[in-house]
């Protein structure tokens, strides 16, 4: 298959990668950039575990071609915290007990981030709606929703 060099901007850093036309964004992140925080629980667009943000919008990286997101702003879980300083959502997930096995966590947090940017003060039902495409097999979602509500509160008070 024809390979070409393509440039990507991931977590504020520029990368040049030799890609094939059929390479998915998830493959690019996990296999070529070593960013394995993004998970693949289905690889078929059915679970949300591979969610990353492209120009601020949540997309399923397992079902998105890398070639299609060249030169766009890609943000994945590794780019969310700044050094030791965690994002409010990450803090909230830890404090609320919203993490069990943790396999869904990166996708959940990225989806929640995009949602809160569009709607900084959501109701519980809106959070449920917003996370409707992200499966978690462990938690029953209660503490995940608690965490997102908590983070929304912190963020609207000026937290990071």
């Amino acid at each position, binding site marked *: 298959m024809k390979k070409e060099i393509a440039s990507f901007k991931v977590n504020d850093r520029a990368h040049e990668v030799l890609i094939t036309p059929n390479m998915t964004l998830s493959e690019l992140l996990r296999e070529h950039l070593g960013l394995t925080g993004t998970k693949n629980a289905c690889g078929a667009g059915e679970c949300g575990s591979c969610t990353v943000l492209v120009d601020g919008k949540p997309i399923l990286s397992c079902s998105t071609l890398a070639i299609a997101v060249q030169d766009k702003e890609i943000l994945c879980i590794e780019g969310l915290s700044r050094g030791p300083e*965690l994002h409010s959502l990450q803090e909230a997930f830890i404090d609320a007990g919203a993490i069990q*096995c943790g396999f869904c966590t990166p996708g959940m947090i990225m989806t929640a981030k995009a949602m809160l940017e569009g709607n900084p003060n959501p109701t519980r039902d809106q959070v449920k709606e917003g996370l409707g495409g992200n499966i978690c097999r462990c938690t029953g979602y209660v503490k995940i929703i608690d965490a997102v509500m908590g983070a929304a509160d912190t963020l609207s008070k000026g937290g990071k």
Partner: protein
Amino acid sequence: MTEKLSVVGKRVPRWRAHDKATGTAKFLADTKLPGMLEGKILFSPHAHAKILKIDTSKAEKLPGVEAVITWEDVPNKLFNPNKLDLILVHPELEFKDTYVLSEKARFVGDRIAAVAAVDAATAQEALELIEVEYEVLPAVFDPMEAMKPGAPKLHDFAENNISVHFDFPVAWGDAEAGFQEADIVVEETFRTAKNHICQFEPCTCMADFGADGRLRIWSPSQHAFLHRRKIAEIFDMPEGMIQWITPHVGGAFGKYGSLSIEPVCVALAKKAGRPIKLELSREEDLFATEPRQRYVSTGKIGLKKDGTITALQEKIIVDGGAYYTHNFSTTAVNMGGFLGLYRCPNVAAEATCVYSNVHPTGGVRGYGNHEGTCMLEQLVDKAADKLGMDPLDLRLKNAKKAGDPSSTGIPMETCSFEEMIKLGAEKIGWKEKRARKKEDGPKRYGIGIGIAMDVSGAQPFNIQHRNAFIKFNEDGSVNLLLNAADLGQNIIGAMAQIAAETLGLNYEDIHVVTGDTDSTLYDIGQHASGGCYQIGNAVINAAEKAKKQLLERAAKKLEAAPEDLEVREGHVYVISDPEKTISVGDVSREAMYNFEGEHLNISGQGSFSPVQNPPPLSAVFTEVEVDIETGEVKVLKILYVADPGRAINPATVEGQLEGAIAQSLGYVLTEEYVSNRETGALESDNLNTYKVPSTLDMPETEVVLYEEPVPSGPFGAKGIAQGAMIAVTPSIANAIYDAVGVFVTDMPATAERILEGLK
């Protein structure tokens, strides 16, 4: 217990929560070894077939392919992927019927061959080049058909495809006489759901034979030591030559109570002489790893007019699939749940385990008790109906109390079912809601209850040995060494809390070493909700021994008697003179670095083998709305009252219960594991067709922890995680029964089945 606790009972962050929140936690799929190859398995497309010829030459020639294996390359040795034969009191009821790769396919998805190549795509391409000549055999997909004379036979030793028929080994009373005595008898036949746990991380394994000749296996096992022994037996190796490393586990729920792809991975690593990673896709995980058994079970309950239960009986056909695995053990537990939940003087049960060409089953959360209790709890509601009694009163009438035997037969130290049921009824408004008008247009309202008791381990039926080791560092922190897989239930965090509390240290002072058979002591593994109760006691034992050394050492420094010392937040104080104090770090460091010839690394090894088996208790209340036009069930609210003994970390205990609510919802309503009736191939092989609940399916939930510390538990704790679905499932079924009178015998209760029931 009235002592003041400073770490136990606190909502501290779970172990490695930070890594999981930042994406730095490495799961197996995130890991690479130098020189690693990727493996792929060729699964049988036929439900029943003999391999006449298998030609791998084309696959071998494909550039990038390093190894291809078939049944001819693996040990000619049968095994049972279920580890219980190693620790069961009655191992004669476990059968070995599985090969690493087989010459005969017994279900669609049986393992035929495997390839290792430079990458997964090449391995996949190579699979397609393997030429297999099959002799397709007649197949049978239904256990009733499979038992008939002349049905296709799966295993030579099993006449009529029956692997074993057994009676409940520890029955009591005289069931026949009990039914004679009864004023009413209710009997129903159920078909439970063959549900897949669908843990979120698809099954993955790595294996490597090092230059030192030792085999390293990385696999999210729940039983590292027992599975190591299984691999040692299969590949004829000494156990010590195998190191089993358990990485982060992306959910398990019983899944990793069986060996799954590890033997194939090891065989590939052996042949290729290189490290191998084998990763299943979601689809493969669904069809090639074990779902629950389906029980076709007839349950019978006899009662006096006043509601007293006089007899219980269960006759089970176990639709266990193509291999035996956990058939006996889950079914015995099913019986224990069915017969042992209530006071009842006369019980009996029998089961027939049947092979057929469907996907083999394993141990899934609830491990038989889930299905046994669910059937019983539904029968109780039907009996209440017949007697004109409130099902809640019927439960109160027969509920067990402290001192009664639990479902394992061991007398219970505590048991407050009565208080829990009353508390829940009060909170949800049972009396008013039960009496409420059902109709609202096509929508019918209903409320139901389910109760359950589970276990804190598998004593007295299994060996249950646990070990822990504690050693102090110079700074006064400790390493806690144990072998417990954190499957999401937070066993590690809970053990660190217990260690900190016992030692008088802070939670942050406990650094846990786990997941490596080389550096931890033997442990039977995570099953039967035994972890917290059993390992917790071993940790206390280890901590007390280490603390004794610490205090003896500190006593000299402080010129006080060891009995006059206490440890709080990392400091040793003289009780009679609290001004006199020394930091734990100073004591520990001085013990290591001194010129007095009294060198000591303060440490302690603790062990535990349980005598008790205190059951965690559950009482669950569910409200539903059923649409009689569409058959759709909407769960409105679930209230869960649980007695975990003591919640070491209430947040993670609640998390177990909330997660189980979601899993029960899926079990009762949406998760249907469907195979094609003609071919036996799995049809629900992705997350669109196998419907796991999402946020949008979740009702309002409320969890109430009714903590009654149990004397034999670590700080009073019992197990909680495994049993958490058990009462939820029947409470939903009973709410449906209350709403529309449809008695759900066939799970899941899909809209079609509800409509069928309404006819």
